[in-house]
């Protein structure tokens, strides 16, 4: 049983189709990177997978549970860091984590214990009385990540988790994610930074203009043969080369903007 399965997942906004007939399959324990250029449909897909957005058509299953009928059960087993980080600005970091733990059903002692551990691990315990709204962007990202894992989710959804995060904070987050993968957690991560995906993920899906154009393991992608895509190339490619060939490389800017000098 796959951890995440979507069948014909579609989302339209009026006349515009943001996500069209996407069929994803992510096995348990996979670190799955969901790539795509800006506006390709990454965030829309992750919003649908986490219950923030209703699909126009298609079905989604998380850990074998259909999202349309078992939304609350699914939510209990997943952790989410959405685009807006979903923080409560006027709580302190520890108050927020404590609150998050109890929202996921932890008892007061367990929530307090895990809060303390997470604050230490994320190096957020130095300012116990600072409100979240006064945290730096990187600190907020770490806090959002901590809140997403406090209940020990089986599947973790991360929407651009490293955006705006410095190298030190990024290292902390990566270490935690790798530890979770080692323990069998499935991670679904969207990013437009190819280096991060190449370094962390075992499997990759590429979405372009709302359609899933490639999906497979990193090795499959580098060799140019994946589900939905077959690119002729001698030897192994880098992920960037594969990505650019799949979604289309940059247009010749100098031809169109000759006045740039």
């Amino acid at each position: 049983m796959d951890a995440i399965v979507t069948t014909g997942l579609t989302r339209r906004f009026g006349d515009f189709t943001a996500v069209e007939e996407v069929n994803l399959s992510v096995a348990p324990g996979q670190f799955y990177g969901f790539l795509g250029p800006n506006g390709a449909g990454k965030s829309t897909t992750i919003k649908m997978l986490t219950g923030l957005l209703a699909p126009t058509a298609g079905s989604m299953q998380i850990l074998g549970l259909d999202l349309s009928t078992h939304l609350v059960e699914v939510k209990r087993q997943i952790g989410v860091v959405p685009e807006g980080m979903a923080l409560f600005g006027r709580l302190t970091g520890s108050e927020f984590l404590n609150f998050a733990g109890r929202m996921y059903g932890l008892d007061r002692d367990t929530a307090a214990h895990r809060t303390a551990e997470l604050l230490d691990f994320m190096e957020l315990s130095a300012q116990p009385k600072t409100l979240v709204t006064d945290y730096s962007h990187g600190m907020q990202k770490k806090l959002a990540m901590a809140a997403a894992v406090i209940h020990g989710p089986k599947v973790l959804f991360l929407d651009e988790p490293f955006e705006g995060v410095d190298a030190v904070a990024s290292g902390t987050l990566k270490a935690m994610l790798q530890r979770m993968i080692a323990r069998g957690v499935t991670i679904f991560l969207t990013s437009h930074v190819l280096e991060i995906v190449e370094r962390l993920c075992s499997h990759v899906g590429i979405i372009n203009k709302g359609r899933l154009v490639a999906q497979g393991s990193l090795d499959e992608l580098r060799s140019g043969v994946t589900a939905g895509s077959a690119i002729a190339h001698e030897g192994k490619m880098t992920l960037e080369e594969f990505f650019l060939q799949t979604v289309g490389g940059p247009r010749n800017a100098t031809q169109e903007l000759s006045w740039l000098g």
Partner: protein
Amino acid sequence: MISPSVSTGQLRAVVVLRLRLLVNSLRSVRHRLNLVSRALGALLVLGAGVGGGFALAMVAWEITKSGKLEWLAIIFWALFFFWQLFPIMASAFNENLDASGLLRFPLSYGTYFLVRLLYGALDIATALGLSWSLGILIGIISADVRLSLWAALSIALFTMFNVLLGRAIFVWIEHWLSTRRSREIMGVVFFLVVIGFQLVGPLLGRYGDHTSRLRVHVPAILLWVQQKLPPGLTSAALAGASQQRYAGAALSLMLVGAFSAAAFWLLHLRLRDQYRGENVSEGEKRRTRIATSAVNRGWGLPGIRGPLAAIYEKEIRYFSRSGPLLFTLIMPLVVVLVVWGGRRGILTHQAGFALPVGAAYCLLLLTNIVYNSFGADGGGIQFFLTSPVSFRKVAGAKNLAQLTVLTLDIFILWVGIRVVYQPPGFAVIALTFAWYLFAVPLNLAVGNLLSVYSPKRIDYATFGRQRPAESTIILSLLVQMGSIGVGALCIFISRLYSNLWIATLTLLGLAVPALAGYFILLSRLDRIVMQRREVLATELCKA
């Protein structure tokens, strides 16, 4: 390098930008409804502008005809106070574009100054101020056409002074409020000033006999001071011109000009720093002290467990860090004192009804919280949406926290009434309780619905710009007027029969459907939220 040159092309681009923002905001039904509310507001402003202008024209005409032009100072002072205080008191009316964001473009200082001055001055206070000034001008000229030039010059200078000073005050306050901590401090100061003003009348009424010496000296000092300030100087200039003392009149006008120059300079100081790239950090200075990782356990509340207790605790923590909420806690007491007003107070002979009247006022105070209950959560709404807790529980816990605040409000009110008047009788307490059983579920039910249908992000840390959506305001007013009206009607009928218990029993009877409606709506809230989740997330996650 600061260049004073002005680019008309850039000014035109800013005007087009503002129009585009308005047009684009009409894409959703909710914003169209808000525009209708704004249009109604604009009609009111138009009425106030024309009506007020006409009234002031009559007053100015009368004063000019009587030849006592010094008395014009009274209307100039009224105009001045309105012009300067209204934008601060009603900052919620202005949702202007943050013009400082334009600095990323190659604007000359002159253009930037003009944009901040003119664009910022497009508000209700300026519109009304200009209409009323025009009214005064017409009144003076109609009464004495020989004063046309002097009146036009004086009022033009006075108008310029008001516009410049108003903008200067606004940008300086904006500067002081640019960090959360200073916003909170200013909020409390503002709040204390408001309360202070409201208490002046009752205290004078109460202790009036002991201030006879002050009564002699204070007006004389105030009169002398007002003559040296722009409203007094403007009227002095007009009085001088009417008595053909032109040198004195010119000197008064020059002084008004000097005050305008000072306001210009104050405005320039602030805008120049902004133009030069002033950076006000929102974040606090990071403390370096080492803290322990000891974390307090969440609240354990009798009868409330798990997520319900967690949300309740979160809400109470939010309230406790909210300046505006402090306002709701103290205002009932202030109102008791203000309405009491010593021996001449309104309620002195109707003290028995202080509790129900105060209770209705307490409920009104919670409008922003009850009718936009997710507004302060901001991006946190996504947490609620992705968590396994039903919105029935989320809204229920929020309502519970709101009830806690209301109970605290009522308790403070009860203490105030007990101290100022006398302990409310049992029949009045029962009546108030019965009205609450009817009005509170009704308000909470509609409040929950509007919180989902018409959410608007708000910040508990600030006093200004904290209104719900316009459509919410209108509907919430209707519900509140309805619930207060029903209560008043019940009391009126019961007084006809000289038996207050008739009202109590009627209200208890009405409470049954209100409570049933509340719980039915709560049970259906999850379905409604699922339908509205995109709007909720989009509106509340806006930066």
